[in-house]
């Protein structure tokens, strides 16, 4: 099994409820966000000030898309990669990959704050908490899931624009792994698990004539 987020940009309202639901559950410090609702077309990947820029070469700039400002989004957090760089680089085993669910967990209590995962992650999913001197990231609410609940973000989404799927289920095979308009490590060797449904503009749009 490989649990994964399926993000539906065609219905996402950009309301940020999911991102705040994460803070509501875990109380990250001001300035630290594990989930971010990224605006398609905006170059906010580069100005995420909590993020030390990814260093892997597979990171690439997305082709420009022309979408209206502040209207289309993908909600992104840790990609719970099949082949996670954070797990590979962590010298103390604070990052682990759950063999059963595929969730990439981080145990902050044994993290030594070396920052390796923050640099290694091609997506900036691991954040560095400067007050704590330790890393932290989304662990897909594994504690909640063990109890039969879903993640905080999924539960609070008003339109089911984020869901959790099993990537190994053949019916999800055709889903896209490339988000449009967002700089992203598309061919990352880590094999990110997040899948995307792309947004589209309404078929009929009438705007006032110029002049």
């Amino acid at each position, binding site marked *: 099994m490989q649990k994964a987020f399926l993000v539906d940009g065609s219905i996402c309202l950009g309301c*940020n409820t999911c991102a*705040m639901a994460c803070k509501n559950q875990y109380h*990250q410090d*001001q300035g*630290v966000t594990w989930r971010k609702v990224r605006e398609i077309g905006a170059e906010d990947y580069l100005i995420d000030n909590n993020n030390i820029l990814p260093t892997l070469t597979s990171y690439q700039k997305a082709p420009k898309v022309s979408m209206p400002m502040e209207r289309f989004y993908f909600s992104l957090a840790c990609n719970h990669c099949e082949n996670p760089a954070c797990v590979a680089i962590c010298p103390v085993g604070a990052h682990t990959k759950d063999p059963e669910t595929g969730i990439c967990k981080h145990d902050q209590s044994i993290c030594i704050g070396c920052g390796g995962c923050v640099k290694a992650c091609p997506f900036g999913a691991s954040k560095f908490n400067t007050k704590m001197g330790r890393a932290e990231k989304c662990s897909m609410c594994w504690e909640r899931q063990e109890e039969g609940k879903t993640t905080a973000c999924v539960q609070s989404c008003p339109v089911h624009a984020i869901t959790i799927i099993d990537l190994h289920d053949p019916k999800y095979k055709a889903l896209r792994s490339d988000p449009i308009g967002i700089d992203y490590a598309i061919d990352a060797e880590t094999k990110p698990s997040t899948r995307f449904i792309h947004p589209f503009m309404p078929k009929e749009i009438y705007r006032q004539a110029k002049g």
Partner: protein
Amino acid sequence: MSYSKAKVEEILNNTISRRSFLKGLAASGVLSALPGGVLEANEDLNTKIPYSGEKSYQTFRNACPRNCYDTCSIKTYVKDGVMQFIEGATESTYTRGGCCVKGNSYVKRVYSARRLKYPMMQVGGKGSGTWKRISWDQAIDIIAKKLLEMKKEDGTLLGAALTKYSGNFGITHYGIEGMFNSIGYTTRLAGTPCWPAGIDAQNLDMGDMWCNDPEEMKDSKFIILWGVNPAANSIHSMKYIYEAKRKGAKVVVIDPIFTETASKSSQYVQIKTGTDGLLALGMAKIIIDAKLHDQKWLDANTKGYKEYKAYLDKEVKLDDVSNVTGIPLAMIKELALSFAKAKPATIWMGYGMQRHTNGGSMIRAIDALVAVSGNIGKYAGGARYGHLNTWGFNYAALSQAKPEGSVGYSGPEGAKGEFAQVGGEKAAYTDRFLNINKTARELMSAKEPKVRLLWVACKNVFAQDFDRNQLIRAFQQLDLVVVADQFFNETAKWADIVLPVTTQFEEYDVNVSYWHYWLSINEQAIKPLFEIKSDLEIAAMLSKRMNQLQAGSCTFPQSVDTKEMTIKEFNPAIYEQFGIQSWEELKKGPVKAKAVIPFADGKFKTPSGKFELYSDKAQELFGSALPKYLEVRQPYDKFRMTSPHSRWSLHSQFQNLEWMEDFHPEPFVYINPDDAEAKMVSSDDMVAVFNRQGVLRLRAKVTDNVQKGTVLMYEQHYHNSIYNVNELVDDTSSDMGAFKTGAPGVALHDTFVNFKKL
């Protein structure tokens, strides 16, 4: 972990030992294990609070009391007396397990270091910034003595004014008005800046403002979202709209702005601002000409169809409709005909549309369009605006007797508010009512006696009222300004005394919505932090002190329990409507009112008992019996400015929180590319936006989400910023509002500005 409930209480109750206690905790390393930064005075504490299993928490029922369509039913998880997290109640099919970005920030709001913690007095004078912490006894003593002194000097308490609006719509919060009722006849800032023109319009047409259940929209075949943006401001409604769309319904957004909702619609139609009424009239004419109107329903249920049709025939020219609205005639025809053919079809009208000088007339024109199409009184149909159908509480906290011998205003009666219209016997005196939408002007001009004391509660005057510079002058001439709030906002800065009040998690209350049909109890989940007290407790303390100083001077109970006050609000009719035996059942989760289709029985509470396309009352009050097209206010500067609500804040609440700053740190002005180019402005440039009212400096974003000739800025209050969009808004009235809410609304979106690059 050596961390116990007793210790938290000790800290919260004993602020002097708190600091040393914290130091001890920090040294022992315990501090980092404490949840939520609750004990950290300055900033957030640390990171991940693990989810420790459903059984490890105590849960409480809460409700979001903000001025919002969605009024979420909340479940709060508490551990050792500390709020851990909240979630939307899963029992409510409307809230469905999730709040919004604002609701999800509540834990931070409760434990924010920015919260008001103690009563404070601005000893250096209003606006000086020189504050001194005072005790509750001192604060209440000052206020009580001032009130009694005024009463002695003036022979009445009309010099004491209350301004309160939508900061908390919990039913017991009408106890604030109750407090003012209990001291005598006083002055009230009456009316609403929110939705009054539309309320009047719907009451003139149908005798009530009564919308269908929003959950029915899933079965609508055609939905017009007219000037409303649920994707940002009523996110829980979107699932029904999506469901309708998935089932093949067409979802059309008519809006001057390409909104979040427009981006998810089937069709977006951009209209010139303030011309919606004419579009509705034109569409009705097209439908009638094509004989697609519901003649049978109109004959049986309307008054004045003949006059209305004659007006359409004679006065409404389709070419004019197209020219004025800026929409091609072919598109209008297609829209009108496809709307008329779909059954059931519905229109949801936003509140922004009626914040114009012709706002009420536009709502009336759209009501009429829905009537013509035969969709009034139908399941999944309706002219949706809002409702107060589930608000039939006792208003026990509100209803307080006047002290014996109270002297008041003997002018014409005008006591109104849209929510709690409690009937009282005709008295020799009444309170004095000033127009809330002209607060500055009215506070300064009130005479005999002049206003000397102002109490502000559930309201941020400087963020929400108009003409800031005049407001400062008005506040400065008052003897005593008391502000009860949760945060040190701009209004508090112009106060003499600020009083810290509870969040809904620290008190009992009961909540319903003006949109959906759910009822939620709000339990006290945690003890009030610091020295914070509820509005009702403050009223009780004031009553106690006034009675000590002068027996019989205040009738408010001298000690209150918010739970007892909440229980008093229930009555058999509420139980019947919601199908419960007792309020205690609400502890198991929110309940929904029994389904009713508004006006399905064809009974309208108008004078004629019918839907009034022709209204004598409208003729009498507003000079037009028919929903005639009324031209919107003429520009007085280069660009129209609209100031809609953002997803990040509810009026002046939430945007000021630390967590909200993580996602949305600063305001922007949104400018159309053509206008930006003419002024050589690019995205991220600092610009000044100004008019005869004031000036704002902020960063620009260039986007064709706004149409040429219009700039957009959201209405928001930031923690450390003087940004306030209402600084540019004058207090020009909308056409309607005085009929049902006591005062006309404000033509907020008829504000005009210019801008330049800095």
